[in-house]
């Protein structure tokens, strides 16, 4: 102990460095926390909504699949039911949004007896191919939107809506 004497000067130096270090850390930590905050933020809920439609029952013929999720408008929470037209293209699941790109009506598969293999909008007779491509000469100006879709425990799960990637 006697060979390792700490002088008064050294002791004061260590003490002040230590205290100063704590103070600097106290200031820097929140700043760093602010800077990386977006990375740490947790996403609310899962992106995919599970439906009660079994994947095994899906054929090449589009069927309507309803799915419900909770939507928050400011302080008001409500259950929203949306639907999608789901079919198989080979082994790939495809889900199209039923919202007409013209003015937002709901389109139906084979909605018109004259066009049994197209989506039909009852409002202004807009039509789409099976892959969502709008048919020229009808009012819609773009293809139907597409949902991200995957199989979850044998059932269809529907995710975010995006622009049509099939056409």
């Amino acid at each position, binding site marked *: 102990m006697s060979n390792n004497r700490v002088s008064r000067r050294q002791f004061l130096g260590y003490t002040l460095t230590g205290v100063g270090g704590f103070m600097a850390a106290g200031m820097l930590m929140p700043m760093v926390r602010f800077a990386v905050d977006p990375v740490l933020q947790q996403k609310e809920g899962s992106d995919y909504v599970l439906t009660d439609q079994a994947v095994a029952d899906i054929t090449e013929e589009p069927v309507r699949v*309803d799915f*419900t999720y909770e939507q928050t408008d400011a302080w008001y929470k409500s*259950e929203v*039911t949306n639907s999608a037209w789901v079919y198989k293209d080979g082994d790939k699941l495809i889900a199209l949004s039923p919202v*007409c790109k*013209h*003015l*937002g*009506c*709901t389109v139906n598969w084979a909605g018109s007896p004259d066009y049994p293999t197209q989506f039909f*909008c*009852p*409002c*202004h007779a807009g039509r789409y191919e099976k892959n969502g491509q709008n048919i020229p000469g009808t*009012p819609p100006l773009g293809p139907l939107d597409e949902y991200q879709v995957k199989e979850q425990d044998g059932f269809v799960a529907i995710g975010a809506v995006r622009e049509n990637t099939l056409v």
Partner: protein
Amino acid sequence: MHFIGKEIDQYLSQQDYIDTAVVPLLQLDLSENGMKSSAGASEYLQSLTAMLEKQFKGRILLLPPISYGKIANRQRIAAELLEELQHTKFKHIFYLTTDSEWRTIDSLKNVLWLPAIPMEDMDQSFKNSVMEDQLRQVLPLFTKEWSHHS
């Protein structure tokens, strides 16, 4: 379209396409005994018209429900509505109601009278399927009217 600011902008720019108005007519009964069925009828009518709007969003403008008391003079309400709707470019106007008294008023065309179904005890999925059935009865009336005059 709903009767809200944002969608009215869209309506105003697309009046050629959105040529149908839907007016829900709703009787209020605030007496102790009548309140519950009146509220049920209101719930039914508003769910149905909201679903209708979702289906035909690009062709109909759904107005807020016209509410009136039991003793209201339907004839007068009809006249006032017609007067107001005269200023618009709608080619088709539908009135939806659960109030049977409208069946005797001849001045309004296309009054769809539907008996209210009490829904408060149904669970969500059953309610949806009941409302889908109701909607399926109403939709052809619209498409028929449109195909007749277009």
